[in-house]
């Protein structure tokens, strides 16, 4: 899951990036409000962690501005401002969650997963499509109750497809889910990962829409 981190404090930003990476997130880190707004408008992230006291442009202004521009991704505001009016304003402007520093990394990760899940209309912690179950917290996948070992990229790809089950995702969209900045994307990486997933989970699960992308059919949902 690829998230944008907007935090101006070098130590905290570095810690959050490293910590979220350990927990399986792909993290892009920006240090000022203008960069945050530019990235959020341009790239597709699963979610964003936004500090409010950002240089150049305040976090709340960034939030208000991207919401006006129709960017709907879940935004978690992470801030030192803990007064109730600040929280209320943050949520009113368009934050999906409001967390006061300091925060536990595991909690932050869980909140981000929950935000992303709800943003995709998934009420349950585990995602189920057909007979495949995906647990984002444990980063584990099972098919018909049997655990299937996946690489990190394969997991992220499957996670993206399952979150958007029934919707076609283009190769570019999938690449954005899989790679953060500075990571080189091999030209046929997505095809390779899809190929591996099909080998592990069966050909029927992921369907190719020629010239467009890939889709996971919602059919045959099984209960977890």
């Amino acid at each position, binding site marked *: 899951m690829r998230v944008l981190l907007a935090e101006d404090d*070098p*130590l905290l930003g570095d*810690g959050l990036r*490293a*910590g979220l990476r350990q927990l399986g997130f792909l993290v892009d880190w920006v240090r000022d409000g203008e960069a945050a707004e530019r990235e959020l408008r341009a790239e597709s992230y699963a979610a964003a962690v936004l500090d409010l006291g950002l240089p150049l442009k305040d976090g709340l202004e960034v939030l208000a501005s991207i919401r006006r521009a129709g960017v709907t991704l879940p935004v978690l505001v992470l801030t*030192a401002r803990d007064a109730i009016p600040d929280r209320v304003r943050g949520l009113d402007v368009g934050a999906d969650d409001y967390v006061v520093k300091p925060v536990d990394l595991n909690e932050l990760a869980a909140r981000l997963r929950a935000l992303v899940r709800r943003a995709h209309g998934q009420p349950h912690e585990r995602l189920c499509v057909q007979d495949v179950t995906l647990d984002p917290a444990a980063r584990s996948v099972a098919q018909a109750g049997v655990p299937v070992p996946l690489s990190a990229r394969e997991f992220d790809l499957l996670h993206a497809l399952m979150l958007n089950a029934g919707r076609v995702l283009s190769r570019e969209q999938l690449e954005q889910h899989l790679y953060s900045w500075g990571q080189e994307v091999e030209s046929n990486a997505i095809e390779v990962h899809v190929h591996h997933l099909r080998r592990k989970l069966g050909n029927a699960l992921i369907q190719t829409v020629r010239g467009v992308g890939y889709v996971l059919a919602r059919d045959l949902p099984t209960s977890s």
Partner: protein
Amino acid sequence: MKLPRSLQGRLLVLVLGLVVGAWLVTAALTWIDVRHELDELLDSHLAQAAALLVVQQTGEIEDDHRVDAPTLHRYAPKVAFQVFHEGRLALRSSNAPAEPMLGFEGRVADGFKTVEIGGTTWRVFATRGRERDVQVFVGEQVESRNSILWAVLRSSLGPMLFAVPLLALAAWWAVRQGVAPLRLLGRALAHRSPDALQPIAVNGAPSEMAPMLEALNGLFRRISDLLESERRFTADAAHELRTPIAGIRAQAQVALGATADAERSRALQATLQGCDRATRLIEQLLTLARLESGEEHALVAVDLSALARQVVAEVAPQALSKQQVIEVIAGNPCTVQGDATLLSVLVRNLVDNAIRYSPAGATVKIGVSSEQGAVRLSVEDSGPGMSEADMKRVGERFFRVIGSGQDGSGLGWSIARRIAAVHRAVLRVAKSDLLGGLSVEVRFLDEEVA
């Protein structure tokens, strides 16, 4: 006499004391006046009676003729008369003694006299008859006069005796009503919670209380300002401490979750760095809190030149590690009245800022000079300087220049400004004409000159 401490008691004692005093004076004056009038009246009656007796002495005078004068009035027994002829008692009332009321051997007494006869005090009028050897005495018991006097006083002043307790009660009630606003204020103040600092309404309060209420409201205002600044400080401090602590926590968690040694050691290094930063921040906050508490600082003569050289010697390694050129121009002793510890903090903050915000290879110049008795400390650098807008905001608590790449809290400036204020010195930030970067000047006003 010591007055009671309570206003109500005080007023009551004074009012009642004055009323009773006035009453006693009135009684005394009445006593004197009535006695005078009574004496005049009764003396004239004695004289009248004596005149009647003298007139009667036209006929034969027998020796010791006791007249059983009928008691015509209950008062009559208190009046007696004697008539002497040729020194012998010729006529007397039944209640009169045989001896003359006044001794008159060899001479004839005349006029009024008060004498003691047989344990009773008499007022006696003596006069001569038409014949020279007739002596008439008419006496009246003084006791009877006194009883009349008392009766008059009783009837005229007696009601006052009953009035005094009633008056006391009325005065107590009136005084209580009068001081009621004070009692109400006391109760209102007593029931206030410590943080209720809204002013007390002055409208409607007695005019005597208005100055006190205004003074109280002024005090409330000052306390509330102080509390507000404390509150803001605490909020700012909490806000400012959260970020470094969040950083420390995140880095520590990264270290815990790290699988590679390099990753763990990097996170632990960052954790330590975060601790150092939080420590510095806390030290700055404490310094600022102490400065803002309004505590008095003992100011003594301090040689600012020596102090600047010493501080620069301590921070110079920091500059040298950035290949910066640091220079002190402070040859002559320049004495200011100040607190050496605070002045060190001031100089260190300014020099530290210049070093930190100037790039590698920059020049930092520290100067101490004396111009017309005013000592001037300047710190200039060849760094990037500051925008006009930023220069204006420097010194606001937690204001820091954005994008400086330094993790300062902006507290250093607040502290420098506060220390300058403690020394009644003026701190000015400007563009350095000499080096092109920032120039900070602290001008100490010489008290002897000023």
